[in-house]
């Protein structure tokens, strides 16, 4: 699927994006993405095969070897492996969870990743999102599905000033340009 994922809907927008140090905007490259849903027995096996134990705490992400497992719901996780080929990962998880009730869907081409980093990143996000993004309420390692203006996004805080936004590819230009609008007053 690399040929699909590489057709990034943000590539044209990203080339004319201004550099604002307080809120840097980066269109991330392709990644292998999976939605895993399952009950108790399959959760450990899937995490083992993916290489990242699936987080059991609400709205938290786990990280190992550059891969991420995001808690989206009590029985739902988004697995992200940046730059990886989805096929072998899919086969490995399916092999580990064979016979256990679960669902694993390759959604690598469904969404694109955006990184927003800088001292004013939370301020820019809050122009279209009502969550409390203070470090107490949304600490490093927090992740959640939420809304940015009218578009559904998955928001992750990788570092105090670094946010990852995962958005469906057809909504990506909408989210990107509204982030640009939020950055306009910063420089």
């Amino acid at each position, binding site marked *: 699927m690399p040929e699909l994922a590489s057709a990034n809907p943000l590539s044209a927008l990203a080339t004319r994006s201004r550099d604002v140090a307080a809120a840097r905007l980066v269109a991330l490259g392709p990644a292998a993405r999976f939605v895993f849903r399952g009950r108790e027995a399959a959760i450990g096996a899937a995490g083992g095969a993916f290489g990242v134990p699936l987080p059991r705490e*609400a*709205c938290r992400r786990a990280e190992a070897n550059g891969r991420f497992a995001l808690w*989206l*719901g009590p029985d*739902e996780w988004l697995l992200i492996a940046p730059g990886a080929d989805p096929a072998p990962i899919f086969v490995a998880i399916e092999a580990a969870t064979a016979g256990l009730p679960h669902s694993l869907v390759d959604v690598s081409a469904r969404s694109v990743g955006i990184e927003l980093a800088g001292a004013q990143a939370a301020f820019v996000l809050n122009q279209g999102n*009502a969550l409390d993004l203070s470090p107490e309420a949304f600490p490093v390692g927090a992740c959640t599905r*939420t*809304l940015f203006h009218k578009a559904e996004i998955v928001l992750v805080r990788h570092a105090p000033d670094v946010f990852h936004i995962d958005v469906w590819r057809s909504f990506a230009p909408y989210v990107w340009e509204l982030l640009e609008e939020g950055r306009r007053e910063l420089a």
Partner: protein
Amino acid sequence: MLIIDCPWCGKRPEIEFRYGGEAHIARPADPSALSDEEWADFLYNRTNPKGLHAERWRHIHGCGRYFNALRDTVSDFFVTTYKAGEARPEHPRPDVEGSGT
């Protein structure tokens, strides 16, 4: 903005949620044994109270889960929220610290 306390995710803005109708309505075990009136009552008739109302909500732009809430239909105040499958809380008091404003 109205803040709703999702039992899984915590306090979230109202825009992330969808209303799901009245809670605690069990589908009859044997619908064919019901009269038309009883079936119509199950399908259509709701309590529509003025005051506390147990209702379903879905955190659709969050964890995706359905849960139940006790809401005052007069003031739109969310007295409490609880997970689907749990019994309706007894003696709710609107002055208890809740999740709405």
